[in-house]
């Protein structure tokens, strides 16, 4: 998992043409030692400052229970410099997200890589995490 994340981080570094700002304290809100990889259906995209936030319905494989998770990315100006538009993620898309979990245990995370599950197409990196230590 860690290796995978490192590879993802390297890809992010290569893809990024402009900084996607860290705005609040990443370390205060997210735990870099708690990486996640989750797949679900997009239910909402809030294309907003200071962080674009999207939500996924994620089904637990064992219990079949559906939980709505939210993930934070960079702000629209930074995302657009990195090739996103407000329609890059659409409601109903099935995506796999990698990133770091919230410290408070809520279904919330910082997204560092977003992949369209159907095609494997990697959408541009999105994290507001540039200060994880």
């Amino acid at each position, binding site marked *: 998992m860690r290796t995978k994340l490192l590879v993802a981080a390297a890809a992010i570094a290569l893809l990024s043409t402009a900084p996607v700002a*860290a*705005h609040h304290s990443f370390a205060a809100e997210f735990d870099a030692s708690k990486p996640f990889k989750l797949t679900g259906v997009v239910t909402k995209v809030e294309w907003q400052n200071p962080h674009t*936030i999207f939500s996924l319905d994620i089904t637990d494989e064992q219990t079949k229970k559906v939980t709505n998770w939210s993930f934070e990315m960079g702000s629209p100006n930074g995302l657009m410099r990195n090739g996103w538009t407000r329609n890059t993620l659409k409601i109903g898309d099935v995506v796999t997200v990698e990133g770091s979990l919230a410290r408070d245990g809520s279904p919330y995370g910082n997204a560092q890589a977003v992949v369209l599950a159907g095609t494997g197409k990697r959408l541009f990196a999105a994290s507001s995490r540039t200060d994880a230590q």
Partner: protein
Amino acid sequence: MTSARYVALASAFVIAAFYTAWANQGPSASRPLEAAPRLADGTPNLGRVPGEKGVWNVPYIQNMGMRIPGPDGKTLAERGTASENGGRGGAKAEPDVPFLPWARGIYDYNSRNNSKYDPEGYCLPPGGPRLMATPYPMEIIQQPEHKRIFMVFEGATHIWREIYMDGRPHPQGDELNPTYLGHSVGHWDHDTLVVDVVGFNENTWLDYYGHPHTDLLHVIEKFTRPTKTTLRYEALIDDPGAYSKPWTVAWNIPWSAGGELTEYICQENNRYFLKLTDDFGQPVLGGR
């Protein structure tokens, strides 16, 4: 083939190979560095050349303690002896920062809680040198005919500052109203723009890691453009309320050719502030 013709042909190949290598290197690599542009009156132009786009791509500098130039003029970050931002070692890991005891204590506190209470985290603007250390691009717009310079920042909180170049002094006493960005007066010292700033309020940190300051803060900034694509920024931090002596930080800011400013309104969905709790787990906004 005579040996002379052979040498000439070989030379042509070598030159062609070099040319191809040079041409494939893209805009920045190993071409001679372009000199910084100047205005019609000879003053350095810290902004765009007419007909071209471009912005300064402000780096994300988190810890000013890593940006103190040593005897060789280079900072720890530039020497590569420390990671770009250093670690969360608190004040004891930064012997070159002349903390007063209370400033040392508050810096250690900010280190321990991962900058949880960083004012920039809830969309207040950066004050002092942090303006040049907060991501997203900025532009410098000179208006010599009006004896003023504007600095326009996409990041921080979509903010601008005005530097008075008309020789006025800082306001004195109660006329000096404490503000986030302070009161800036500037002049040219040869090719260096020197800006003197006082009148800061105490609502900002010097950097993300949480070096504090007081309203006694006095900053002397120096802006130079050694080449077209580099802005060298240096700031003397003189705050007898927080530090036992002045200290200097410096870094380079790269030019982003073709870049333009866009909109960034941090306050739009300021969720972090709404969720922020104090050290006892109570909502920070709850008591208001």
